């Protein structure tokens, strides 16, 4: 798991008074498993963009953490 990504996800959760998750994996679903709603996903997008320079939701929906990691990797490559 990308450590920075985990930190960002837990930052968004903390803003909603939710405890950090330590067992995130590539198949974790953002809504069902991580508990993020559309406005949380907007905040997540902004924080990821600031760190990694990619707007992960710009070209279609993203459902899992693995899909975010793939998009970040594509930009780095």
């Amino acid at each position: 798991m990308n450590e920075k990504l985990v930190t960002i996800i837990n930052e968004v959760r903390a803003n909603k008074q939710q405890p950090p998750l330590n067992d995130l994996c590539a198949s974790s679903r953002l809504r069902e498993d991580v508990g993020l709603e559309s406005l949380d996903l907007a905040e997540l997008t902004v924080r990821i963009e600031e760190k990694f320079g990619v707007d992960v939701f710009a070209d279609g929906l993203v459902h899992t953490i693995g899909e975010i990691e793939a998009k970040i990797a594509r930009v780095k490559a």
Partner: protein
Amino acid sequence: MSKNILVTGVSQGLGLAIAESILAAGWNVYGVSRRHSPEYAALQEKFPGRVHFHAFDLAGVDAVKEDLFGKFLPFSTPLHGYVNNAAMAYDDIVTNLDAGRLRAMYDVNVFTPMMATKYAIRHMLFNRVAGSIVHISSISVHTGYKGLAMYASTKGALEAFSKNTAREWGERGVRSNCLVAGFMETAMSGKLTEEQRQRIYNRTALKQATKLGSVADTVVFLLGDGAASVTGQNIFVDSGTI
């Protein structure tokens, strides 16, 4: 607490008056327009370090992210308010409607301001700021004037956009309101004859032009903490149109 406010159309008219009122409130102005006017430069001189300028053409819908925000308002500058003031008026009767001119007006009055709202809210989310958005609308949306159908339609679009933005982002503390301005004596209304002016003023309770300072001070109120529970509203500052 000091606030950083993005204002469009600061070179003259209402935008310049809004910049002045924001400075009087003790906040900072991040102003854009195509021209860097001597009047705005004078404000920069009078309030050193608090008045910023970036030349930006609102016709550039696709430049909002990289240019307006990327170059002028990076995340390191928290944004507390966005005043969508700049606009153009394409006046004509409907039977003369030209699609190209209509599109150009929608780019400046609607599409670029909508994109700027997108990035303003993203900015507020990043810095966890309960920001305030104010769109300058026009009384022509609510009364109707000959020749203003196309222009008024752009402002009507903003009113709908503002109401829905307020609903969507309220739970994050972001507010959005429209200030519905009556006829003001600026370059935009400069082509009206004295007779046309009087006819417009006679349709108001106060029988006079709407004062720039009154509109500007109301914008500052909507930006400030005194308006913390005001969102999704159209606030009329129009000499009391009847």
